[in-house]
């Protein structure tokens, strides 16, 4: 499996650390309810098919990526920088 890092190009999966579902980049506010925090931290859509997950290019450019990928075929379709998606660099 190779991941197309927008900065480094196609790189081997072993250069990346897998974090989990990309929902993790949308952190609720500290005041949000227990249910919202539970959903954010623990519950997952866990789709069989196309998913978006968060990877860290730890043995490369150290960027955080949202990767569009199929969980049924392992086909990697796309990778986007989190900073670009979030817009504010946070």
């Amino acid at each position, binding site marked *: 499996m190779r991941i197309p890092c927008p900065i480094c190009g196609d790189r081997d999966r072993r250069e990346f650390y*897998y974090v989990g579902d990309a929902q993790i980049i949308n952190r609720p506010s500290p005041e949000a309810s227990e249910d919202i925090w539970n959903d954010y931290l623990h519950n997952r859509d866990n789709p069989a098919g196309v998913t978006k997950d968060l990877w860290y290019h730890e043995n490369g450019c150290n960027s955080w990526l949202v990767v569009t990928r199929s969980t049924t*075929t392992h086909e990697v379709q796309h990778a986007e920088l989190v900073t670009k998606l979030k817009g504010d660099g946070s």
Partner: protein
Amino acid sequence: MRFSGLKILKEGLTGNKGWTNHWREPEPKQEYDILIIGGGGHGLSTAYYLAKNHGLKNIAVLEKGYLGGGNVGRNTTIVRANYFLPGNSEFYSHSLKLWEGLEHDLNYNVMHSQRGLINLFHSDGQRDAFARRGNAMINQGDDAILLDTEGVRDLLPYLDFEQVRFPIYGGLYHPRGGSARHDAVAWGYARGADTRGVDLIQNCEVTGIDISQGRVTGVQTNRGQISAKKVGIVVAGRSGQVAAMAGMRLPIESHVLQAFVTEGLKPCIDHVVSFGMGHFYISQSDKGGLVFGGDLDFYASYAQRGNLPMKEHVMEAGMTLMPMIGKARVLRSWGGIMDMTPDGSPIIDKTDIEGLYIDCGWCYGGFKAVPASGFCFAHLIATEKHHEFASGFRLDRFKTGYGLIDEEGTGSQHNLH
């Protein structure tokens, strides 16, 4: 039909014409008291114990493929009770006791072989941790023996004791641990359930769960609607999809775990052995193949096959520990879909929907749990009460943070187990 030595002798002398099917192929009825979604090891054992322990009739198991075609036929068949934490310890202890009586109970040869399990350790810290684990196992009433290097050498002379990078300091020996024929476990439970009147319905995929006023009323399937008073979901890696039919999101992420088998060899590995410095565990099947595996590939997957990096890691770990296997040729590799929870422990619980129950989250350790999981899940469905040996496996422990069972001590978070 009852199996016995006499029966085998008789059939052998009369052309093996008297064997019959192990279970019926019934058409689904319109209505059942209890539906179990999932005809794998856990689903079949649940149906068996519902009928046997609770005397319930009018039960069906719905399986989208064929019985035992999922993880129960894809694992590395290790049976053990070497858990440490309360919540896990009593549960797996109970499961091992059920294993020990399983063949008599089912009148079925599941080839349960208590050949002993040895978890190797390679540092002083690891020795301390295993000594503590062994004491917990003994306190639970199970068996554990702490071996030093020479003790390991007596049992496993073929390990590389000379290598300096990961010296073998000893091992935690669990003599009652071992292996079983995984398919036979599914078949034995299927036959036992069928004999007690459970309808086992294959090629029947659940496509919806009917809920009315907060109560489950049945399921939609590719073979029509089936009504039921109670429904149990026992679908391992597919838990997320089936729970979604009831509007639920689960604390589960499905991952791929690979396993491997070599060509058949003469007997050389007499125990189940795990390496403590890399993910690698191995045993030898009765056909002679070396069956081994490692860790998750570590990304969400339903593919039932993995990628090369973990294959490389597993082979490297195997060669580090026992270079003698280097000449064996790998025959096959495959993957299973693991229903991973944040703390690495399972869920056997009611849901917020009345009459809907769930048994899932077995991560990569579901095979040894097959008897006790069905036993305790059947108890929950039949009596509405958690069984004392599975009372910790609550669905809400992640939300409350109370009662987490983090056996590895790494934290309760997806991607840590």
